């Protein structure tokens, strides 16, 4: 509260995130209501139509999201000092999230085992600054263990890429 009205450079204020999420909730509610109206919210010959129940859900979503938005706006001044996440906190979160998104996209192309090995190795080198042999042991050991567990013992096929195809799996 000491920093009332003033936000440090790069800090994300809570009130703004709160408002955005509340408005997204309202938007979600609108989507649900519109789609329910499309499939019909009335009574057909054999009972209620498909939109009957979701329509209420959408309406409640809009109301509850709207309430939170209004409450946030009403307390806009008072909540000026609240920081949702500081820049120092946001950096590690993004450093986690970005590689994860890349990892998931990579699974499409090179399969989950190779992608996991690269992901673990990359993360360890980038964030942990481990010695290369620790990195190699963890990043190769985990996918190999997973391969044995899923493909060989439990016979649960996971996404595979060119390397596994080359090895005959």
């Amino acid at each position, binding site marked *: 509260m000491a920093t009332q009205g003033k936000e440090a450079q790069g800090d994300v204020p809570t009130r703004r*995130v709160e408002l955005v999420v509340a408005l997204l909730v309202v938007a979600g509610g609108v989507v649900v209501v519109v789609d329910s109206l499309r499939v019909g919210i009335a009574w057909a010959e054999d009972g209620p139509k498909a939109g009957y129940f979701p329509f209420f859900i959408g309406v409640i979503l809009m109301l*509850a999201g709207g309430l939170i938005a209004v409450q946030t706006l009403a307390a806009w001044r008072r909540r000026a000092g609240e920081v949702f996440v500081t820049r120092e906190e946001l950096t590690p979160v993004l*450093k986690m999230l970005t590689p994860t998104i890349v990892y998931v996209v990579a699974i499409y192309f090179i399969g989950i085992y190779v992608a996991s090995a690269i992901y*673990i190795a990359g993360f360890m080198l980038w964030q942990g600054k481990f010695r290369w042999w620790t990195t190699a042991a963890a990043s190769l050991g985990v996918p190999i263990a997973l391969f044995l567990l899923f493909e060989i013992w439990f016979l649960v096929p996971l996404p595979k890429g060119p390397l596994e195809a080359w090895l005959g799996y």
Partner: protein
Amino acid sequence: MLEDVGNLMQGFAVALTWKNLVFMLVGIFLGVLIGVLPGLGGANGVAILLPLTFSMSPTSAIIMLSCIYWGALFGGAITSILFNIPGEPWSVATTFDGYPMAQQGRAGQAMTAAFTSSFVGALFAVILITFLAPLVAKFALKFGPPEFFAVQFLTFCSFVGMGREPPAKTIVSMMVGFALAAVGLDTVTGTLRMTFGATELLQGFDFLVAVIGLFGLGEILLTMEEGLAFKGTKGKIDLNVVLKTWKELPRFWMTSLRACLIGCWMGITPGGATPASFMSYGMAKRFSKDGDKFGEGQIEGVVAPETAAHAAGTSALLPMLTLGIPGSPTAAVLLGGLLIWGLQPGPLLFVEKKDFVWGLIASMYLGNVVGLIVVLTTVPFWAAILRIPFAIIAPVIVVICAIGAYTVHNKMFDVAMMVVFGVVGYLFKKLKYPLAPLVLALVLGDMAETAFRQSMLLSGGTMTVFFSNGLVGSIMVLALGILLWPLLGRLRAWLRAREDAAAAT
């Protein structure tokens, strides 16, 4: 009553095979591991391992999965006491007195107290389940669609009325769950809802994927934000400490009993283990004669929250088994498992699948005994695991979450969704939207909708069907009462403030 004891003995015969005992041990071990590691908890741990159990017999599978749950409940205490990091939300209250005890060199004592009270709480809840579940199931056989909807309504109202979060946010979280549950093919009319032409959405959103994302990746993101350093004390337990602590514990029987009752109440009405542990800690602090020393390392401050958390976690299975309504996210995942094995939880389960139900209940007794022994003997090992740097653990957990999300339906789309749910989980957690109602609504959405529609069919479209007889009427009134409870409190505060203002002028 006698019949139940007989059934239970038969259950022990089912559960006490070598094969099932091994599954129990494996389950407890995995469970403690999940409980100790950040980002993996009871709910998403069970969700990830669920697909691996499809090839087992349902009884063995549920025994192993429920043991993972007990293990996770035990494991949360280890990190709280040694590292001041709650491995699970319900062990936050354990850090208040557990960590100071560890700093004073009494970690062994604190952990013995925590594990023993967990065991006592769970045992109390299992005994309650043994004798209450058959009665509830018998009673619920009379339920029609309106009654089922009313009970589900009660479940969701108690989230709003009894949660610690702002009611509007609880409602949002719940409705998001219901909305996501409605996506896809409507089973009654065959209409496509909210798919917007995307074939990936035909089957809708699977709650297992949501659980893995919300609780797994979301938790990892939060842990990253808080920093990676684990600074902890050494954990060691020897027989001497255990025996000495056990001699001390009976003094706290009153605290323990109170915690058991709070826990069971919060577990059956889905308040959940986390509020139960806080409530129990608060009560113990108020009633204890050493109340003002709480927070400085009182054993009683460890006993109270741990007992309540375990009692709540265990009794959450009672409504899951008897009514098909889970009392916690983990119970919801177990329910999902039952559905996949073709077992419909609910009152009929007690009639049609007697072996299974009583085998499971018997395994709850055995699992907790096994769990207590395992955790007491393996603490140093778990403490060592926590010394592995987070920069290794974090990516490995994300990999495991990705695999878990993929194996639910063998779809890459689910892995992408898991990441989305992870971000949602992070945002919701930081903005104090509760996650449990979202998961439960996603699980129960279809069931609640079906019950609602059938009720409407019965009545021809009027809401009066929910007050048409004494049973459904009283459940609805109770539900509405709980729903409006926070409003009442606010009204009273407002009236008092006005009185004060009037008195001042």
